[in-house]
């Protein structure tokens, strides 16, 4: 069902864990759907110098988290924001159709962490990152 690449990232996920002094944390998904991804970043001079994740979910959820963190590690925020779920799928040599949502979640988790970073800096993230889907705290009509 899964490509060798997905299984390899599931067996040996990269960047698992937490960053104690993270200055960007994003969490997406919910228990009811069966997937939660939490991303920790250490951003210095607009560059993601360290990144870790914790994921509750299926094999694809773990593998996409692992791959997404690999793809943005060391990149600038601007570069990280161009990460698409499609790029994650391609890097993993494909995902079964029912698992595509995991790659979307991975993309959203990266964005959520960056949104958190901007908020902590007192910068409105919406013009830069776009809608974060959190309707309750949104100031834009």
């Amino acid at each position: 069902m899964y490509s060798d690449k997905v299984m390899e990232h599931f067996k040996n996920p990269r960047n698992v864990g937490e960053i104690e002094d993270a200055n960007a944390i994003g969490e997406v998904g919910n228990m009811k759907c069966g997937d939660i991804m939490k991303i920790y970043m250490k951003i210095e001079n607009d560059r993601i110098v360290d990144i870790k994740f914790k994921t509750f979910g299926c094999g694809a959820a773990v593998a996409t988290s692992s791959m997404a963190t690999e793809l943005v590690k060391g990149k600038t925020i601007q570069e990280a924001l161009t990460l698409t779920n499609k790029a994650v799928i391609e890097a993993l040599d494909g995902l079964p159709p029912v698992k595509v949502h995991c790659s979307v979640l991975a993309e959203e988790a990266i964005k959520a962490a960056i949104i958190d970073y901007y908020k902590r800096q007192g910068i409105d993230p919406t013009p830069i990152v776009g809608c974060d889907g959190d309707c309750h705290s949104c100031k834009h009509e």
Partner: protein
Amino acid sequence: MRKVYVDNAATTRVKEEVLKEMLPYFTEEYGNPSSLYEMGGRTKKAIEKARESVANALNAQPREIIFTSGGSESDNYAIRGVAESMKKKGKHIISTKFEHHAVLHTLEYLQKIGYEVTYLDVYEDGIIRIEDLKKAIRDDTILITIMFANNEIGTIQPIEEIGKIARERGIIFHTDAVQAVGHVKIDVEKMNIDILSMSAHKFHGPKGVGALYVRKGINLPNLIYGGGQERGKRAGTENVPGIVGLGKAIELAYENFDEKHDKILNLREKLIDGVLSTIPYTRLNGSREHRLANNTNFSIEYIEGESILLMLDINGITASSGSACTSGSLDPSHVLLSIGLPHEIAHGSLRMTLSDENTEEDIDYILKVLPEVVQKLRDMSPVYDKVKNNK
């Protein structure tokens, strides 16, 4: 690496004796059972011998057995057949919320064409309440279809009591016994079962063959029109090797039954005790007492079912999950939801189903590997962090 197969509710390994019995019917005894020449006569005889074996296992008559392609066909035929033949009497059917999809989807189809279905609750223990059944019966109830044993959590229904009530009220009683045949002693007379579905590959027979027991006097419409096979009910040249395999498998399943049953039960108890005592935040789903001897189904909180399965597979253990992900759908198991598990816990289930081919060493191996796998996944789980931090 050690290989441990504990997914016997999904399918079983064909026993050597079964395969040996089947093989001649591919290359030597290949005559059409409907043909007049001698070779045809011999294959016809082989089919009838298998029919007798199936009937004996259920305390039924050979003429009450119809061979089919398996459990799903048997369930479909039983339910649609009764619905059609009894529609003048009524259009109400009683079932449960946690039937196999072969039953549930058939009932959904019937609802679309004007039948009414009452789905009984199965409560936290995975067992219906007889009082609920009595209350659900109406004057226009034509069929009660309740599974013998559940495919995910292995809970066994009070079949004899259900049969008694159905008989008293003159309602046909069908039971999907796909998980029960070969694993539980069944007596259709004593239990008042009118129609019963079974599938050979669930008790070490081949895939693609099953049977339906239909009590004499119940006249189902023909399933497949064509030749006169299966007394015209299901036309088409018979799957001779498959039927022979089914006959042998059911004979073997009930040979030394008590001995094998006790062995499996002991292994299961060891597995349940081991899992519950070594892994925190786990629970056994469904009644432990009224349960198939080979079934375990655990909820392991804060991790997800598919991840557990993949990780076990990497370690040579073949199990399954009620979790969404495995079935290609994203909804958690309807069985686990039906016994009241919240969605988030229903996502993290692990089913391990044993057979007499499993050993103590297999269980020891599972009890060594599983806690490590669970710990690894929990260490990766943001949900478990919150639990740890709240302590």
